[in-house]
């Protein structure tokens, strides 16, 4: 792998914080094939990019989830002892309201295995989940419910975590429609 200078390199000066108002998710068990991790990267940039698409099993699909603006965050936490470093990726978000759809979602996924695709403000995508480990629900850091005052925020906050050896960018497509067998 060829190492190079790492300069400022902000494309067109873009470096806004936060994530898009939509995250994409699916069930880990519904994935047919995962994008591949770099195995013999030529450059340090290639060492951060997955190759290929997530392909869902026939009849399965990925889904959109709306989040309130400025409530979504993707965090990369470094964990582990010396010689045993790895990462925990965190996705936290807030979905407004207590509609049946979001309640049913939380009921269904709270103990299930998922994957997420998160896009930052420049459109760079991060995949939370791989063939070995899923993303899982880690609770509600900002609480769920109606709030107390009429001016409080009502809705569901969620955090999902994914443990990984390395952090990768996902450059593949995101089909939001059912996969077919052919």
């Amino acid at each position, binding site marked *: 792998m060829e190492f190079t200078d790492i300069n400022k390199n902000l494309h067109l000066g873009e470096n806004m914080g936060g994530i898009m108002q939509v995250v994409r998710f699916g069930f880990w068990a519904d994935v047919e094939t995962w994008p591949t991790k770099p195995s013999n990267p030529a450059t340090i940039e290639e060492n951060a990019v997955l190759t290929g698409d997530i392909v869902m099993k026939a009849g399965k699909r990925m889904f959109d989830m709306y989040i309130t603006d400025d409530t979504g965050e993707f965090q990369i936490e470094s964990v582990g002892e010396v010689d045993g470093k790895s990462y925990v990726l965190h996705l936290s978000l807030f979905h407004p309201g207590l509609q049946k759809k979001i309640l049913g979602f939380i009921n269904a996924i709270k103990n299930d295995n998922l994957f997420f695709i998160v896009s930052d403000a420049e459109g760079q995508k991060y995949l939370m989940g791989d063939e070995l480990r899923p993303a899982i629900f880690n609770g509600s850091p900002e609480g769920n419910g109606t709030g107390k005052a009429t001016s409080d925020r009502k809705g569901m906050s969620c955090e999902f975590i994914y443990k990984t050896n390395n952090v990768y960018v996902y450059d593949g*497509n995101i089909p939001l429609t059912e996969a077919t067998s052919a």
Partner: protein
Amino acid sequence: MWKDYFKMIKLVPGRVVISGHGTVDFSRDDIPVALIKKLYENDFPYLELTPRGKEKLYGLKKDTPISTYSKPPIQNKPVQKRNRKKRSPNKTGKQFR
């Protein structure tokens, strides 16, 4: 209409988020053919060229296979018959030198 020239494969026609192009809804009929052609040529994995697309967009005959390189035509050499005698197997099945 783009569906005359291309067919969606591996997915039920619907929305796909494509890097550099945003969300494209393949259930719609009014997607510009130029966009679909560009996706196909950039190895978008969910499009297949129809026989009509082959002919109209690439000037190929309907039965011409699309490939990234042109294979040289296979030339069938005439089979030369040699005047060999067939060996008759021995009855025991053993081989003798």
